[in-house]
């Protein structure tokens, strides 16, 4: 059974914005990245799944239960994008209230709260009032809240927006830890590196449309790009699998080039080709495409296919 399943799920705000026609299925034990620029509808989608928004059309299921029902939210955790918690509570009281709402048996509550506080690195600080928490601390306590009930699926809406680099790594480790425990993590993000480092599967959304979905590596491999440094101009003609060459920078005796290839397998080929033609390579490094490039690639692809369809 799919952990999350939607069929043409659509949520618009009076016909505008939101997200349209999303059909996806998310399996067990993976980190699923929902990637898109600002305003593409990521939060709208998650909030619809959690029953906070009323779907305009289509249907969705969480763990087989139709969205909007209380049952569909029993084994779910959520960290909202605008994480605001009642600031008159202490971190611990907040977790206690949520434990109560999740019907965690009284005897296990204390232990479970200690566990999750530990997991998000808030041990010792959970007794402070939330009003005195920094933004990062609030986000951490929100994460603790999201995993409190040992959920089967956790929705994280930009979970590192307020965190420092160490915090980001902690969150990444937490996501991998959850995955290794067989949980599903649904990650909303507009940060390429965040998605890249943890996600097994990705959807790309743009202006309320789902552009493409698939395994992360496949989507990213729209093209292979490398940067090389040579000591002379490249005088030999380039093989056909090179789609683009540009000079990036000339510094004294060295020249830096950007080279675009058809796919990853062409990287060793081009290195060998240049070396055998007597060009000395001082540096070769693969360039991860920019998120915008990946987006634009798939967005254009989608437009083209739409054009072909009609």
């Amino acid at each position, binding site marked *: 059974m799919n952990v999350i399943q939607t069929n043409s799920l659509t949520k618009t705000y009076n016909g505008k914005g939101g997200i349209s026609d999303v059909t996806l299925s998310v399996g067990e034990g993976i980190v699923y990245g929902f990637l898109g620029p600002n305003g593409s509808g990521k939060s709208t989608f998650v909030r619809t799944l959690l029953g*906070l928004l009323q779907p305009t059309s289509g249907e969705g299921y969480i763990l087989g239960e139709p969205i909007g029902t*209380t*049952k569909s939210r029993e084994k779910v955790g959520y960290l909202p994008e*605008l994480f605001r918690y009642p600031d008159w*509570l202490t971190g611990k009281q907040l977790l206690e209230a*949520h434990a109560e709402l*999740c*019907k965690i048996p009284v005897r296990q509550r204390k232990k479970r709260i200690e566990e999750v506080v530990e997991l998000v690195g808030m041990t010792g600080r959970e007794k402070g009032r939330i009003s005195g928490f920094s933004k990062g601390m609030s986000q951490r306590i929100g994460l603790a809240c999201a995993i409190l009930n040992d959920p089967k699926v956790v929705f994280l809406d930009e979970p590192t927006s307020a965190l420092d680099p160490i915090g980001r790594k902690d969150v990444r480790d937490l996501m991998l830890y959850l995955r290794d425990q067989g949980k599903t993590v649904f990650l909303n993000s507009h940060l390429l590196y965040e998605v890249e480092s943890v996600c097994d599967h990705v959807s790309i959304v743009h202006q309320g449309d789902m552009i493409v979905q698939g395994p992360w590596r496949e989507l990213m491999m729209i093209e292979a790009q490398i940067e090389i440094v040579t000591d002379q101009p490249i005088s030999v003609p380039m093989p056909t699998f090179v789609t683009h060459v540009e000079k990036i920078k000339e510094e004294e005796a060295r020249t830096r080039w950007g080279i675009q290839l058809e796919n990853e397998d062409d990287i060793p080929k081009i290195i060998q080709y240049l070396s055998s033609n007597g060009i000395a390579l001082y540096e070769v490094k693969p360039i991860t495409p920019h998120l915008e490039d990946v987006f634009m690639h798939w967005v254009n692809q989608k437009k083209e296919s739409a054009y072909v369809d009609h």
Partner: protein
Amino acid sequence: MWTISKLTFKEIISKRIFLITIIMTLVFLALYGTAIYFAGKEGTQVGPNGVQGTETILVQQFISSQLLGVGLYFSSFITALLAILSSVSAISGEVSSHQIDTWLMRPISRAQFVWGKFVGLALIMIAYAVVLFFSIILLHQGIGKEWMELDIQPMQMIKAVSVFVIQPFVLIAFGLLLSTRMTTLNAGIVSIVLYGAAFIGGFIEQFGALIEKAALVNIGVITSLIFPIDSMYRKMTMILFDSIDNPLSLAQGGMFTSVSNPSNVMVWYAVVYGIVVVFLSIYSFKKRDV
């Protein structure tokens, strides 16, 4: 549901405004006590040469009941304001701050959430109203000199206080309903204006009863049906001042007591009204995007 009620309860108690309210209530009670004390001292001299004729007693009783009426009227006013202020933000406030997201994503229904809020608010406001009611009665009966003490049976008090708490009950239900759809500010304005309208409606009805004009009475009755607030206050004074010994009921006349007597049906109407409004709130909140 109880978790939400408990949270609502705790939230109010933990806010600074709660402390301020308690202090201001004590100030109000102290002022009232002082007023009663001096009125009690001076009041004995009412009447020609302090002679205690029948007429004098009637005048004293009238003044005394008016003083109690004033105290209760302002208590009812304070309670109403607090009920309005606490309920109009109950849902809209949490929606606009997005705090509600983390509660509603839990396996609780919208209905449970609304009930939780309502019960939490109603319990605290009713407790407040009861304490205020008995404080006023105790001050009045205790500090006022002998002549001030009105003949009020315990049963009358219990009945009266039960009617007294219907007002915050209805106002909370109503504030909550508005809160599911409107911003806090708008809901607050609508509630207060309606409260004012109910007051004026009640006044017109009293006036109508006094000069025996059915049309005016009907206006009052209609406002009571739309917003059964003022009628509850008047019913409460009727119960309280309905002295068995006194053929001429003390409640007859005066600004803060009542001329017309709202029927018992009206009391039940108000209770049912409150409950229906809670169900309307649930209905209104059920399909709403937050």
